[in-house]
């Protein structure tokens, strides 16, 4: 679960990481009061989850109130699915750094990445100048050790006078990573002010969905999703992605769904939506169909090859869903695995032709959608 910048900065503040003065507003009428609080010059920042806000014009600098108004209108006009705007004091920056903590699956450690090339796209630096990224591995049972922080900071070229504050910052950020079961915590840019303070210019935190039960303070709300249907699917625990193609996928098993996704694209057709109802969701065909029917699609393609996720249960669910919801698009099925004979019987009984081969099913779906089979 990705948090918004304003949420990340609240967490930072609670862990003694300095952040700029800022106010959250919902509409332009609140701008005057916001600027009174944070002062000018200021920065107007769209609170949306997408990356690259700077390039997209969703972060704007303003010298005074009038400019701030103009920039706020600009940001509002560009942002999609935005609930809040942040008005933040402009910081007197001396230098910018990058810092993040993620998981390193090979060592089983937390990995701190830092770079003196802050404020820019870290993926770009990782590709073009990997030597400019300093990596430190922290064993979770041991925690971050002082000498690790020192080595990292000295290697970044931090001035002696800032080592102690930098060490504290690293400990605080590591604390945020651990306490919140984070997949990612990132400060980019980490600003070193001319007055000699480290201040978090931006904040990204992503909480591990599997650990949300340990953190009831975080809950997925509508704001975290691009559309109502994605929000509904998430609440139901069904992996669901929306695209704008022709063929709806309702498959069991992530790997299989990805494969069908590739096949559809390979044959130059396109995916309308991606719904994965395997594992614990295999009996949720009706709910899945309700979600699917909120997309625009030409054909629904159902592919499974299950073990615990029984073919007959899924087939019956599909039939029930069709009876109840009467979808108006054609449905192609390749439902296989445990209970497949019974599944095929159920499908035939409802007038659906049960295919046994995935590729055949994909081709059939594309044909029904009116697409060409160009490989």
């Amino acid at each position, binding site marked *: 679960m990705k948090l918004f910048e304003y949420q990340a900065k609240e967490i930072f503040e609670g862990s003694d990481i300095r952040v700029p003065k800022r106010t959250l507003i919902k509409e332009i009428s609140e701008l005057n009061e916001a600027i009174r609080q944070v002062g000018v010059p200021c920065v107007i920042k769209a609170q949306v989850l997408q990356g690259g806000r700077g390039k997209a014009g969703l972060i704007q600098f303003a010298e005074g109130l009038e400019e701030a108004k103009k920039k706020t209108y600009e940001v509002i006009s560009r942002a999609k699915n935005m609930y809040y705007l942040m008005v933040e004091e402009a910081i007197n920056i001396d230098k910018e750094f990058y810092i993040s903590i993620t998981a390193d699956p090979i*060592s089983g450690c937390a990995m701190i990445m830092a770079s003196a090339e802050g404020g820019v796209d870290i993926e770009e630096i990782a590709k073009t100048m990997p030597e400019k990224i300093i990596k430190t591995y922290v064993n979770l*049972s041991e925690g971050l050790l002082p000498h690790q922080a020192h080595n990292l900071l000295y290697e970044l070229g931090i001035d002696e006078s800032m080592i102690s504050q930098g060490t504290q910052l690293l400990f605080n950020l590591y604390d945020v990573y651990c306490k919140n079961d984070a997949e990612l915590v990132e400060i980019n840019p980490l600003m070193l002010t001319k007055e000699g303070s480290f201040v978090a210019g931006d904040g990204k935190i992503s909480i591990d969905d599997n650990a949300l039960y340990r953190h009831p303070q975080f809950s997925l709300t509508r704001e975290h999703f691009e559309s109502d249907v994605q929000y509904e699917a998430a609440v139901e625990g069904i992996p669901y992605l929306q695209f704008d193609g022709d063929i709806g996928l309702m498959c069991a098993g*992530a790997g299989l769904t990805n494969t069908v996704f590739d096949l559809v694209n390979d044959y130059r057709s396109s995916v309308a939506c991606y719904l994965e109802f395997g594992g614990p969701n295999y009996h949720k065909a009706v709910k899945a169909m309700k979600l699917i029917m909120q997309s625009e699609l030409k054909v629904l393609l159902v592919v499974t090859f299950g073990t615990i996720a029984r073919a007959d249960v899924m087939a019956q669910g599909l039939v029930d869903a069709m009876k109840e919801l009467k979808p108006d698009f054609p449905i192609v099925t390749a439902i296989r695995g445990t209970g497949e004979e019974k599944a095929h019987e159920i499908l035939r009984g409802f007038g659906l032709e049960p295919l046994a081969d995935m590729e055949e099913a994909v081709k059939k779906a594309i044909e029904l959608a009116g697409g060409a089979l160009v490989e």
Partner: protein
Amino acid sequence: MSIILNEKTRVLVQGITGREGSFWTKHMIDYGTNVVAGVTPGKEGRTIGEVPVFHTVKRAMAHVEVDASLLFVPPRFAKAALKEALDAGIKKVVILCDGIPLHDALQMRSAARLAGAMVIGGNTSGIISMGKAMMGFFPYWLDRVYKPGKIGIMTRSGSLTNEVTAEVVKAGFGASSLIGIGGDPVPLTRFAEVLPLFQSDPATDAVVIIGELGGTMEEEVAEAMKKGLFTKPLVAYLGGRTAPKGKKMGHAGAIITAGKGTVEDKIAALSGAGAYVAKKPSMVGELLKSALAKHQI
């Protein structure tokens, strides 16, 4: 021969009295697996089939010898259950559950390495040595998929395994051992760590890996091949080639982040190391045939 598990391996089942645990324990025994004991705190004295249940692993091991443990426990207890198995000195563990918290998985990976144990999972159907034994849940009754033979299989995806393995069988082969390393972002054992076992297994002529977008495990396989650590024919199928960047594609591990994990990169690495990469599952059988043929020349 088979790797990790055979019909003699003495298997303990942690969480044996749960619904899935007891159901699949019976299937495992039916398939030939030597299940010697089960553990569920508070349930000592019961039996599942003829398998005795104990409160703790230590208590079970005071009565029976154990070579491997299978964890049928919910994700939030996986870390504690693994530590219990490792503390008792068990060196082979399979963890099935999906949804292990990331920070737990990191600590589990650390603990497993420290203990020198091979811990497979989580988020997997488990491992099966064809015709001999299984730890996990596989529809072994589907004989168009679960057929003994000389192809080693490693997979990150349960559902795709049936699909791809069926193609292997369709081409006239069968499997020696099938190792589901699981779809989590922190698999507790990685492809490249299983590879040496297949390399030294005389019952394995070639290996099929079923990978997907995300992570760097396929690149590590390529690395191992380049170093000459794996010299048998290797065929790979990788799902998610056309997946958009930054979206979690079903599995938590299947995401492209920080510019890493694209299937393009993986294909390039594997092909560069001499592996055969199938564009779709139906190509796996043919590639295996030609790979084995070339290899014999």
